């Protein structure tokens, strides 16, 4: 697999995503500068966490106008796999590539903690190796992670399996306490209708080694690898 990690000014988890793909998974990875308009051929584009443009105005609002985002949109439209983590998720919602919006945590504070998320849809390229309702231990670190989608759209998302991850306790119950930011319906991650663009607030790239507290995040990356190995490989940029 060859992954492209997009670097916006202010990205700061680019290094962690890169490290995971290269050193833990042993796959190829490149950094892609935000000013790039034709980034080349990749199997996966990762929009990493951080504070693109300082998260000034709104998280992800300015980054989504980066030149590279047009390429990301056409890559996604052609079925390419796009993974947005934290700030990357915010950028994808701002860009309209994912439904809903992310705004200020309900308690108004930045929150860095371990969370548990339940896999709600394991039929996606991103979750194929996960058991149904498997609970993953993956940390969050964000100030604007409260997911919102208008009530009348939520049911549609659920029906189509677009709600991919939900915050739960370690036993898999979506309690209020397990929700670190007040997201509607404990939603931690969603995908687009086609299932090839995924965004989530927790950081799977920080859960890639037991010595960091968890390696559950690998399920997502290994699913991607598995899917690419088994299914068609898109190599458009």
């Amino acid at each position, binding site marked *: 697999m060859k992954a492209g990690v997009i670097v916006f000014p202010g990205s700061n988890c680019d290094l962690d995503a890169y490290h995971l793909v290269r050193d833990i998974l042993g796959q190829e990875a490149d950094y892609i500068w935000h000013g790039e308009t034709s980034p080349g051929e990749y199997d996966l584009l990762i929009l990493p966490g951080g504070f693109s*443009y*300082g998260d*000034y*105005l709104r998280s992800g609002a*300015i980054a989504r106008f980066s030149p590279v985002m047009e390429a990301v949109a056409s890559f996604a439209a052609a079925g390419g796999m796009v993974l947005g983590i934290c700030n990357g998720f915010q950028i994808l919602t701002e860009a309209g590539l994912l439904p809903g919006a992310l705004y200020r945590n309900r308690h108004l504070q930045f929150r860095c903690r371990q969370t548990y998320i339940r896999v709600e849809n394991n039929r996606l390229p991103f979750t194929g190796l996960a058991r149904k309702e498997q609970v993953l231990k993956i940390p969050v670190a964000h100030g604007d992670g409260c997911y919102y989608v208008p009530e009348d759209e939520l049911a549609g998302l659920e029906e189509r399996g677009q709600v991919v991850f939900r915050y739960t306790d370690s036993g898999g119950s979506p309690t209020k306490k397990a929700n670190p930011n007040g997201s509607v319906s404990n939603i931690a991650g969603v995908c687009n209708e086609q299932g090839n663009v995924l965004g989530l607030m927790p950081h799977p790239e920080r859960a890639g080694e037991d010595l960091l507290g968890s390696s559950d995040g690998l399920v997502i990356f290994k699913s991607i690898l598995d899917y690419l190995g088994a299914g068609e490989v898109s190599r458009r940029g």
Partner: protein
Amino acid sequence: MPTGRFCAGWKGETVLKWKAKIEILLKQQVLDPQGGAVEKALKTMGYPSVTGVRVGKYIELVLSAEGRGQAAARVEEMSEKLLSNPVIEDYRYELVEVGE
């Protein structure tokens, strides 16, 4: 025993509801990193003529007061004590009567 009405009006004024619209901006000489970032973004998005972008807070609230003077005094107090930080921010406001 005074009635509610009498009570409210005994100073000759009726308690009214006011809507305050408060704008808070960083003082002119203070760096406004958000404003700068937004201005740059707008320019590259195809609005090269845009200048002087400043990003601040907008707060709306409803309060009761006997007359405009009292409402104004309260809004100023709230703005100075809590809503803005006079060290780095200025505020201005508008008051609209919204009924009893």
